[in-house]
């Protein structure tokens, strides 16, 4: 039997194309990009070897420090926001709405599938102050608060990005965590209720401990995704005002394609990759069981 299902030629035909495309377009470029970190120049003007200069520049580059700090701050705030709102939603679905939660789940999941660029432009218009007020400022005016120039300062621009990304993804984490919560056996909850636990007490002592694994994976997925943030920031603020909201990804993109510095761009990309890799190690640690079980 093993001989038939182990036919070398067939295996090659089936796994070959995928492996070839994947190797040529992903694996090779990763190492190629590593090589770029010791060069200067770009595809059009050619490359010159500069040794470790790019790394030395990066260590002293305040824009890299700012971008790294923004990336970490963003990942931290958005992860907490996404998972917290997602968890609140999933509790709402499971314990309050119960069987009628399907329609709410479907509606709140809406924004997840929408193109980021479209959502970002929509938020730009919603938070607009000039030439005329957007939805948010009109609402503020209606309750007597003057219009705010949301994209005029780093703090408020960050707030708008955070609001947008949480709006976009809370439905996703709601459904993800919901799948974990419905797995809690009804008997466990029932016996806890008989013991007198109810409301927040039930959540605090029974639900949170039992949903800890799925909560933990959500947090890690979220960090891994938010570290790579690009579309939403580019389309919403383009890193502004100034460069106060530009993450590593955006700085890498500008360095590479606006200034044509491939070597330095690759060095920043490497920093980002290492950052993600550290998180990835955690992913495999925490979800190893799921991976082998399927």
């Amino acid at each position, binding site marked *: 039997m093993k001989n038939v299902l182990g036919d070398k030629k067939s295996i090659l035909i089936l796994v070959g194309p995928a492996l070839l495309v994947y190797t040529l377009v992903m694996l090779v470029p990763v190492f190629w990009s590593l090589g770029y970190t010791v060069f200067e120049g770009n595809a059009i003007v050619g490359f010159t070897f500069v040794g470790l200069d790019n790394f030395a520049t990066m260590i002293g580059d305040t824009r890299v420090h700012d971008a790294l700090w923004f990336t970490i701050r963003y990942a931290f705030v958005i992860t907490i926001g996404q998972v917290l709102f997602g968890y609140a939603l999933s509790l709402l679905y499971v314990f309050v709405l119960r069987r009628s939660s399907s329609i709410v789940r479907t509606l*709140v999941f809406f924004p997840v599938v929408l193109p980021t660029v479209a959502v970002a*432009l929509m938020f730009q218009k919603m938070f607009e102050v000039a030439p005329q007020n957007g939805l948010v400022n009109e609402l503020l005016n209606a309750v007597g608060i003057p219009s705010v120039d949301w994209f005029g300062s780093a703090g408020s621009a960050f707030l708008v990005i955070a609001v947008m990304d949480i709006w976009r993804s809370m439905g996703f984490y709601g459904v993800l965590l919901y799948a974990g919560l419905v797995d809690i056996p009804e008997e466990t909850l029932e016996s806890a209720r008989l013991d007198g636990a109810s409301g927040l007490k039930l959540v605090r002592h029974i639900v949170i401990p039992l949903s800890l694994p799925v909560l933990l994976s959500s947090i890690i997925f979220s960090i891994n995704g938010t570290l790579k943030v690009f579309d939403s920031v580019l389309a919403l603020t383009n890193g502004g005002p100034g460069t106060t909201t530009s993450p590593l990804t955006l700085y890498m993109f500008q360095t590479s394609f606006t200034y044509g510095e491939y070597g330095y761009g690759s060095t920043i990309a490497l920093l980002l990759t290492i950052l993600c890799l550290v998180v990835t190690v955690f992913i495999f640690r925490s979800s190893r069981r799921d991976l082998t079980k399927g």
Partner: protein
Amino acid sequence: MSAPALQRTTQQATRQPGRRPTQRSRTTRRLVKKVPTTILVAILLVLVVYPLVWLLLGSFKTNAEFLNNPTWSLPSQFTFDNYVEAWNTGNIAQYATNSVLSVFPALFFIILFGTAAGFALEVLVWKGRGGVLLAFLIGIMVPTQMILLPLFTVYFQTGLTGTLWPLVITYTAIGLPLTVFMMATYFRAIPREVFEAATLDGASIIRTFFSVGMPMVSNAIFTVALVQFFFIWNDLLIALTFTNSSDLRTIQVGLLNFNGEFGATNYGPLFAAICINVFGTLVLYLILNQRVQKGLTAGSVKG
């Protein structure tokens, strides 16, 4: 159950018949209890849905209406002028065509190659398949920024820049790791005996894959295709990097530039262009919502 707790439940049980509420007061109490929940859910739904409604209404307004009326006013007429202008003058038609021409060929290759590899990795028996699966898994985590520059160089030197091929090729490669991983998981759920029986009946492995394997996971294939469609259709980074002329822009890149070139003063067409982009994916989601939710959460490792 502990003794005091048991006592408490018996107390509750014995207390119950003493003050049995009438049917009516019980119903009212239940309704009153539901009020906060209803309000909460209503606020939630307004927060999620109203921006989209506002967007849709805005797409029918004239520029004068935008400037003179409050932003939540209804449009005075429902004409499709803005849509026509965005579609033709704003080139959204061209951008949408480019998106279709780059996304669907890539989807075809992702599904064909990814399913075959998933089958080979899970059903067939060979040395090193663990290593190959791990290699694919690594690809899920690598940030796209890490492969952009070498690819740009290669596409530039081979003369592919200026066509949609860089997008098709890159999308295919980016989509493969997750597809292989998900398909391997689905094949794992099928008993091996099914495939062994097929080969015993004289089918070659390739034949077994196409006439037994693929039909058995056709549901999963559809889900994975849907997930990949959303990832690729909504992509900005790759499309932005590899499209050097305005003729090649995908709908996302087109919309981004639309805002700069056209929309800063021309609100109506910009809103219409955003609407075309948003409601296209929304319709697809509304038809297949359960499957999209399941698929996207299953692909959450991608982050």
